[in-house]
């Protein structure tokens, strides 16, 4: 078995006294696409934030590219090649679209993504490059948030709830661009409530339920019944 790019080993994560993740383990191979699904409050976003270094696990460890991350801060993880597209997009509102992209590339690693490539992938951003970020529509903001993360040339891209609050046609448009991104050689972990999109996009699926991995396996082999059972705990 090849060494995975990301190896989350049995982590417990707390917010104060509240435990959000219980012994979660997850492996993502280089170049693979994994989806984390689960109901609201299952701990999906917490898992991504922990991988990105925004929260430190209280127990267990995360190994990225063969080295334990320890208590590395988010900025250090970003420099090592982990990029998180946060839930709700969170573009910098006082920056223009282009400035948002440039800040994404502030600690960039060598790689295929530069601003011209980004504008080829998302032409609508090129047209709006000088607008303030809040002037974009929700879908455009989501694309800008993904583009901003790509500017760092990450090896692992974490996307939290791409489809949240967006029209289905916009969601399809964004998902249609993901294969081009993965083809450049990065690994992708998507957190998604839209199970159909998730199963379609990912090769491997992890289903979280109340902070635990309730089900995992190849997306193609997942049955609707197994997912329902893991998702709703029935």
């Amino acid at each position, binding site marked *: 078995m090849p060494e995975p790019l990301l190896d989350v080993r049995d982590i417990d994560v707390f917010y104060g006294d509240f435990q959000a993740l219980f012994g979660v383990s997850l492996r993502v191979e280089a170049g693979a696409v994994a989806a984390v699904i689960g109901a609201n409050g299952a701990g999906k976003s917490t898992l991504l934030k922990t991988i*990105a*270094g*925004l929260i430190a696990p209280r127990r267990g460890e995360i190994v990225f590219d063969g080295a334990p991350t320890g208590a590395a*801060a*988010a*900025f*250090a993880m*970003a*420099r090592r090649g982990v*990029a*998180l597209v*946060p839930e709700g997009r*969170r573009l*910098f*509102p*006082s*920056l*223009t679209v282009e*400035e948002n992209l*440039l*800040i*994404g590339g*502030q*600690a*960039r690693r060598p790689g295929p993504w530069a601003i011209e490539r980004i504008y080829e992938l998302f032409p609508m951003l090129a047209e709006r490059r000088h607008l*303030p970020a*809040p002037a974009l529509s929700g879908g455009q903001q989501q694309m800008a948030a993904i583009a*901003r993360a790509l500017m*760092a040339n990450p090896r692992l891209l974490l996307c939290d709830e791409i489809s949240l609050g967006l029209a289905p046609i916009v969601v399809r448009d964004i998902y249609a661009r993901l294969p081009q991104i993965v083809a450049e050689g990065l690994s992708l972990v998507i957190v998604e409530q839209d199970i159909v999109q998730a199963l379609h996009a990912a090769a491997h699926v992890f289903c979280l339920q109340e902070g635990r991995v309730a089900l995992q396996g190849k997306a193609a082999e997942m049955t609707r019944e197994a997912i329902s059972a893991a998702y709703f705990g029935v």
Partner: protein
Amino acid sequence: MTEWINVILQGVLIGGLYAMFAAGLSLIFGVMRLVNIAHGDLIVLAAYIALLVTQGLGIDPLTSLLLVVPIMALIGYVLQRGLLNFTLGDDLLPPLLVTFGLSIIIQNGLLELFTADSRKLQAGAIEIQTVQLTQGIWLGVLPVIQFIVAVAVIAGLQALFYRTALGRAFRATSDDQPVAQLMGLDTRHVFAMAMALSLAVIAIAGVFLAVRANFDPSIGPARLIFGFEAVIIGGLGSMWGTLAGGIILGVSQAIGAQINPGWQLLAGHIVFLAILGLRPQGLFPKVSG
């Protein structure tokens, strides 16, 4: 008539100094929501450092800026990394209390080292040189230089904020700290750079203050008030607004002093209060985009 024009021009020129007091304050609050109560005392600290540098090396005050500015910037960086970063969080109170304590420490430290005697930086002949603008209107060369420097500082800060990668990092960190971290920005370093920049501006302001008038360890808090007033009059988050705020404060004080010498500070405070009451967001608040 010329008398009043003279008064207003003097007010405008001193307004440049107030804008420099204010710019560093506004910068720090904008980037990290930190209200630096020790700001005025740091201005006085810069003046004393300039005193040591000018006396020790035998150079004039303006040349001493070449040393005082980097020294103050370094102090700012270390102060932020070593102390103030630990006070930042969701609560505005801890940085307020810690900088208040810092203010007391600086005042008493200076008192211990330099006594309560008034000092002044000697700039030589330039202090009394004047230029004639028109018939009956004379401007001091030093106040004019001070004003030009102030405008240059404000323009420089504006350009840095909107044209450089560091300025972009300041604005992004101000917008959303966790996401700025996700972009690979070490926000502790970004904050320390902002404090270094603030203290670099303070250094310039402190040297001009010390050339212009006597100073002693106790005058910091009043400079802090002038800075606050200029920031609030101009509107938070706008550098040019800060310059305008400084000028309005300077002109108000000059007019007050002209009416009655005892009214100088009072007039400034009244205009500040009036603007705070009528337009709490300031005259030139930051516009988005």
